[in-house]
């Protein structure tokens, strides 16, 4: 691997089907062919797992420039061009790393014949139960069968019989007849999840994937095996037989489970979310996410969901509720409780409201046990956003006892509470009784039962916005489904409160808020909401180096070295 003076890797020129293309050194032929716009089909290769080369789908022809063994001089063809020494047998693309001047053929007759052969072999014992298979529509076997399938079967013998519904763990069900034995799931357990519970038993064509005796696939990453299974063998027990994937709409989102901010895709149909899968981002979560993060969409239709505007416990009109809330806030000795669950935009307006009211801002943190991989200790998605927005200048506190004291000493008699259950962060219900309470939240709670004005909020799946993850990466999430009827985006509610308080109109959508945000906050200078890329923007974080964040080492995060 060569590096130039700038510390950047120098590209290597290779030839894909004769077409020159410059690629990063050290990558394999599958990745290199991608650069040239050519797809080399594969099952067992996965960019984030070790290479085993067992599916043989990526067979291709490979040659290198011939050189004289004695002198090292290039050997030339009669026409003066470099002579290529082609390897007589096809080689696998996944374990063939690029070298300067290398030639690969991805479309030759031999390559096509190899792929057709492998496809035929994979299908001889395949049950061909696509009509009832969950993978149908996103199945590599189906896709490549369209390209390299025979269209009919030469196989007239009995197919092998294997277990059809093995429970591997609480969330994963295995259909062994569909398994192509690529071993991705086994390698995932060994190399990523650090729980080596899957393996093959039996031999040859009867090889069968299973759990080791007395073990279960029960780790918090088990559903990633379903994602990486190229066929319909590993299925999500929750999603199984519920929905055809081609009916589902994909929306890019961000996981709110912890400050990791795993990039996700939310799959929905007609306003209902059916599953969440990880979306590749090599700076954040590679291609993985937790099982627990996938279950967060259940909050959308939860029984505990707040679905109506209320004044004094009675349903009310949205406009009336917001006016009532504004009235309470402007009259009283008000404090604001912001949240690290709020998006950057919501936090920005919350800050403005607090500034206008000249109130103190309180913000709590929620910690849990990290797993060193993609679940961090900070169980909120946007602590860094709160810092950047100036809602706090240091770490949020574990509990809001200082607020409790102010209530007891009657220095505060009105609260604007955003996305927080105060009874879980050090306040008693008796204290909540003493104050006028305006609550903006998604789920019912002890705090909600004391709210004088209840403003129902939208979940992350029902709105647009941004979070800043633990590495200060600004990431955008998009609305996947509409919110419950009659609900308004949090930014709109907060913006209306601010406008009513100040008498000046204020932007109310993320895109328009960002125009103001990027001008007024140097941390976000020059950023335009619509142009935030799907893999996010790395923000400057040096100003926060002094903070001892609670997160420990995880997949893409290392705690700053403790100095001093």
């Amino acid at each position, binding site marked *: 691997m060569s590096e130039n003076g700038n510390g950047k890797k120098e590209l290597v020129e290779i030839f894909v089907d004769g077409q020159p293309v410059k690629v990063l050194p050290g990558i394999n032929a599958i990745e290199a062919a991608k650069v040239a716009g050519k797809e080399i089909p594969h099952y067992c290769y996965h960019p984030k797992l070790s290479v*085993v080369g067992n599916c*043989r789908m990526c067979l291709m022809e490979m040659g290198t420039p011939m050189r004289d063994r004695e002198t090292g001089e290039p050997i030339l063809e009669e026409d003066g061009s470099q002579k290529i020494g082609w390897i007589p047998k096809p080689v696998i693309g996944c374990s063939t790393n690029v070298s300067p001047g290398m030639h690969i053929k991805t479309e030759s007759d031999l390559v096509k014949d*190899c792929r057709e*052969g492998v496809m035929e*072999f994979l299908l001889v014992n395949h049950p061909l139960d696509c009509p009832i298979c969950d993978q149908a529509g996103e199945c590599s076997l189906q896709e490549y069968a369209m390209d390299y399938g025979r269209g009919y079967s*030469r196989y007239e*013998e009995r197919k092998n*019989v294997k277990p059809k519904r093995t429970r591997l763990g609480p969330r994963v069900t295995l259909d062994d007849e569909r398994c192509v*034995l690529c071993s991705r799931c086994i390698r995932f357990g060994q190399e990523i999840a650090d729980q080596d519970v899957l393996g093959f038993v039996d*031999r040859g064509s009867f090889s069968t994937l299973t759990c080791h005796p007395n073990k279960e696939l029960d780790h918090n990453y088990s559903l990633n095996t379903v994602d990486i299974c190229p066929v319909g063998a590993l299925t999500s027990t929750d999603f199984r037989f519920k929905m055809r994937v081609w009916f589902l709409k994909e929306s890019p989102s961000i996981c709110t489970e912890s400050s990791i901010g795993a990039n996700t895709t939310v799959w929905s149909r007609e306003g209902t979310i059916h599953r969440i899968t990880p979306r590749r981002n090599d700076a954040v979560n590679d291609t993985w996410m937790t099982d627990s993060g996938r279950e967060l969409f259940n909050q959308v239709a939860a029984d505990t969901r707040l679905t109506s505007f209320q004044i004094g416990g009675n349903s009310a009109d949205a406009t009336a509720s917001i006016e009532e809330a504004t009235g309470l806030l402007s009259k009283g000795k008000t404090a604001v409780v912001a949240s690290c669950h709020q998006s950057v935009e919501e936090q920005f307006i919350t800050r403005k409201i607090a500034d206008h009211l000249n109130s103190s801002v309180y913000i709590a943190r929620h910690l849990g046990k990290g797993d060193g991989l993609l679940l961090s200790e900070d169980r909120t998605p946007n602590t860094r956003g709160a810092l950047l927005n100036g809602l706090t200048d240091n770490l949020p506190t574990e509990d809001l006892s200082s607020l409790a004291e102010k209530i007891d000493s009657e220095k505060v008699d009105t609260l604007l509470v955003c996305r927080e259950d105060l009874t879980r962060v050090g306040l008693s219900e008796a204290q909540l009784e003493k104050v006028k309470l305006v609550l903006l939240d998604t789920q019912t709670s002890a705090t909600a039962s004391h709210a004088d004005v209840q403003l129902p909020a939208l979940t992350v799946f029902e709105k647009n916005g941004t979070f800043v993850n633990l590495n200060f990466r600004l990431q955008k999430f998009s609305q996947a489904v509409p919110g419950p009827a009659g609900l308004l985006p949090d930014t709109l509610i907060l913006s209306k409160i601010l406008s009513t308080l100040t008498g000046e109109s204020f932007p109310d959508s993320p895109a328009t808020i960002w125009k103001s945000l990027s001008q007024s906050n140097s941390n976000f200078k020059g950023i335009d909401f619509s142009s935030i890329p799907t893999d996010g923007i790395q923000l400057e974080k040096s100003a926060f180096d002094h903070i001892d964040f609670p997160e420990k080492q995880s997949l893409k995060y290392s705690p700053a070295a403790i100095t001093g």
Partner: protein
Amino acid sequence: MPEEKRIILKHADEPGYTRDIECYLKHGGYEVLRKSYKLKPEEIHSEVMDSGLRGRGGAGFPTGLKWKFLDRKSGKPIYLICNADESEPGTFKDKQIIHKDPHQLIEGMMISAYSIQAKQAFIYIRGEFFEGARILEEAIEEARAKNFVGNNILGSDFSCDLVVHRGAGAYICGEETGLIESLEGKRPYPRIKPPYFPAVLGLYQSPTIVNNVETLCNVKHIVEMSGKEFAKIGTPGNTGTRIWCVSGHVQKPGYYEFPCGGLTMGEMIHDVCGGLLPGRELKAIIPGGSSAKVLKADERFSGKLKDGTEFDWSIWDIPLDFDGPAAAGSMSGSGGIIVMDNSTDIVQALSNINAFYAHESCGQCTPCREGVQWMRKVTRRMCAGDARKDDADLLLSIANQIEGRTVCAFGEAAAWPVQSFIEKFKDEFEDYPANGSVSSETGDKQLV
């Protein structure tokens, strides 16, 4: 009649020769080990290079060159493994050495280990050879007691331990990277090459040499007589002796040690093995274990040898060395000569071979896993009375889709018999009688 020249099996069948160390020492045992340890490791290596020794496991790769590829700069430990997983149908030579002269192997291994500077050596023995494993373990203890194995061997500063590891009964463990995986305690899935060449990334990702039993025994004799002398046995490029294992329809099947090229197939069958059974005619010979391509009795083999000389052979004229069977389009493989006379049902013979490879395919890579089982199902159906005219073409097509596209050479081992049987006996496959009975083949593993 050609004379046997027994080097490896010199004492094996002598009356009164026993496998214990006292008997071995009485016959000059471990003298070569003493001699070797006075030489430099690289001097032994150059003797092996000079000898032209080729691996006796099947591929016939030059042993000295294999040792030369060893990565000596990695700083990692170097391992020596003896491949005693003799599993190729038709081959039973290593078993003779292990059972009758185990100390010869141990001596050969400790010389080789010294030459490549391996501090740990293994004998990976086939699971079914439980008696052989016991014999070797006893022999190692005897040798250890006499300081031929273990710490500071013969008072030198070289130490090397030797361990017997039993396989669990899988043919694929004879493939050297499959063997290494198995030795590491994993399923014996052969590794992809590149990058996992054993000489660089072998056992525990360390440089490793894997040699056959007969090969390692030869190292002892090379050091004893010098590489140049050894190279005089046999023919150029085919040095030393080979133990041929003849089985099938001959009067005297068995193992016979001859100089490479020292006799022809005809001499072997007619003179050494006493000819075919009375009243029978030759139909076919598989010259190098069941994976080698079959040779048909009335074939002519012609072409040019490596040195340019032209040849035109009948099956009887094929010289028994490495290059002869290869020139005839097959290989000498592991030296297992399987003779089939005209009583043989060629479809059943192939069905038998297919059953073996389908049973032994490790299942790691697609073409071998699915293709070999498919071929087995087809030939078994044919034998069950449901042969079809186009089965021959189908079998050939499946075999062609396997060959050259698998992780290891098992793909070839399973494809070559099918390709050659069909190519040479196509009419017998196409005209195979169908009695209209429906195959009882089932896909359930429990029932087949």
